[in-house]
């Protein structure tokens, strides 16, 4: 059951080749397939460490592929990509179980960051997650916790931080900037030089950044509590919070979930 490291499911041959090339340049092997059904077949027959899958394909779309792979018991992490990079697609991909989402066009490094993170996703033991009271999450990437005064705290998910590897620094948006649900709001620079972009769990205006997050320590060690990133004024909380998942433990927990 040998396989390559990465399965690339993409119907545009140039993009597919580019993705495979980037992976191979890092010493990772990649199989390329044009359509979803053959991809599902390959997933069954061979072991992959990561799937890179386009949303728009000719036989079935990426979400359907994700659902079908899960139904067939696949635990391989899937990263979704698309040329129609809307926040709806991003949010939908995350809540449908993709571990990440990358919009086309991407640079080699952007793709690599996502691939590296995705490869590390399934590795290592997982401790049960603890979340803030009332928090909701965008996949396992980021979380938001509404505060009584109507504002909300935003931060990175532990799984995201872990899979980014040792952190060198965190670059945050300045207070006053707007963030949007499903779009990048912060950049985590890893020790290996890759830059990982964190997708914001909701839209709004940044009111305050966490001083403690200026050093990577608190963010890497306690991203859900001490390592929070922003306090935002949400622009459409009623609608957007509804699109997020409740926080009740992680995706795979060893014991029951924490509050």
């Amino acid at each position, binding site marked *: 059951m040998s396989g390559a490291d990465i399965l690339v499911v993409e119907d*545009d041959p140039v993009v597919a080749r580019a993705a495979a090339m980037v992976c191979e340049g890092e010493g990772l092997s990649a199989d390329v397939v044009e359509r979803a059904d053959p991809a599902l077949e390959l997933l069954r027959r061979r072991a992959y460490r990561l799937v890179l899958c386009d949303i728009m394909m000719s036989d079935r779309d990426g979400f359907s592929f994700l659902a079908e792979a899960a139904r067939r018991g696949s635990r391989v992490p899937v990263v979704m990509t698309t040329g129609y990079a*809307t926040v709806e697609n991003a949010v939908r991909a995350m809540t449908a179980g993709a571990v990440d989402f990358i919009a086309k066009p991407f640079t080699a490094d952007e793709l690599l960051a996502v691939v590296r993170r995705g490869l590390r996703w399934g590795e290592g033991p997982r401790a049960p997650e603890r979340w803030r009271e009332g928090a909701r999450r965008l996949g396992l990437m980021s979380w938001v916790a509404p505060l009584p005064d109507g504002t909300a705290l935003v931060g990175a998910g532990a799984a995201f931080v872990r899979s980014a590897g040792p952190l060198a620094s965190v670059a945050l948006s300045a207070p006053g900037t707007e963030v949007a649900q499903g779009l990048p709001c912060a950049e985590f620079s890893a020790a290996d030089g890759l830059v990982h972009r964190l997708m914001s769990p909701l839209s709004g205006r940044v009111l305050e950044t966490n001083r403690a997050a200026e050093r990577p320590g608190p963010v890497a060690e306690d991203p859900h509590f001490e390592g929070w990133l922003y306090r935002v004024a949400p622009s459409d909380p009623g609608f957007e919070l509804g699109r997020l998942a409740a926080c009740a433990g992680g995706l795979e927990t060893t014991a029951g979930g924490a509050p």
Partner: protein
Amino acid sequence: MRSLPLSVRLTAAAALTALAVIGLFAAVNLRSHRESLIAEVERHADQLSGAVIASTEYDMMLNQRDRLQLGIERMGSRPGVSGIRLLNKGGTVIYSSDRRDIGGTVHKDAESCAMCHSGSAPLTKLEPSKRTRVWSPGGGPRMLGIITPVYNQDSCSTAACHVHSRSQLVLGVLDVTLPLEEADRDVRRAAVQLALLALTSAAALAACLGLLVSRWVGEPVAELVAATRRVAGGELQVELAPRGDDELGTLARSFNDMTRRLSEARLQLFQSDKLASLGRLAAGVAHEINNPLTGVLTYASYLAKRTSDRPEVQRDLEVIVRETVRSREIVKSLLDFARQSVPKKEPADLNAVVRRAASVVDNQARLAKAELSFSFDPALPPAVVDPNQMQQVFINLLVNAMDSLGAAGGAVSVSTGVEAGPQGRRIRVAVKDTGCGIPPEARRRIFEPFYSTKGQKGTGLGLSVIWGIVENHGGTITVDSEPGKGSTFTVWVPAEP
């Protein structure tokens, strides 16, 4: 009949009905007139007969035959009398105003005699109308004849001549004939008059009715038909002039209402069609461009990583990467701008929406040292809007206002009100700040997409998207500003009709 205009049909029907009614009336009138005339002549004849009998009685008793004959001749030649003759019991004409008749016999089966002599025994008494007959001798003018029995009396049976015995009841009959010519002429004249009256009345009625129908029904209906044709041809700005409070006036008002609503609905549909197709176009373009851009960006960035040993090449490749990333941002902004969701509208209280927006930015207002104040119109009518989108609009306007204040802070005031406009009532929401203001050249362009005075790469709503949202709601947004003093952004949306 089907293709004639309504007014013509109504008028014709009215005229015909009038004609029929008047005609019937006239006919009935005429008949009674004729009958009374004839009855009059009958009465006259009867009276004359009585008078003749009375006047000749004495001569008869004295057996003055010549004097009788002369008397009868003289009476018979009077105008209005056609003839008088006296018949004996046997039916022989004894005396007559026309000497040629004398000696002739009238058989008892003749029409004049049949009334009394038709049975087995002759009748002795009969009312006048039964004793009269009307005929036209030789097809000429009509005559009325009346037979009056001469009854036996004591003075007759005891007279010296002993002609009549006591046992006889009827001695003979008097036959008086009167011409009906004048009566007939009278009736004919009356008939003509009535006919003329009927016709003129009908004509006058028709004319009058025709005029009124034409004015009250024909013209408004023609106007409505013309207007309907124009609307059907696509022209929705048609409006009918107001006319009165009757059914046609109400119809005209409903018509105006209908075209107005049609026009609004078409505009909305057009807008959402436009938006939808713009969105689709943008989505299609973005999708199509993003794939080839990926090829360029990925390969260029990959090569850039691998040419650290050739810095000039690497630098040039980095230019390609940078410019391609820039294209990526442009496409994304285009997608964001075109992708505004079609608003889900419902009646909403804009005062409440503004309050919600204010509560969201409350903290930030404190941080920015902005003094927020509100002046809500308590009688604000509802507006049909997407409350979420409008909330985003107000949040953005408030935050922009606060941003313009600078380090020392300032005042931001929001006011709501309603005002009447040419297309109905509009609700006005104004956000005023005491900030740095906007210079005139920038003011013209701030609602353009991609235009920014702050240089920030915002990923959220910009003024262009706000403008888009307000437009989708059929409203307008304007800005008034004085650099150094402050700005006022005013949003107008139509009130619920």
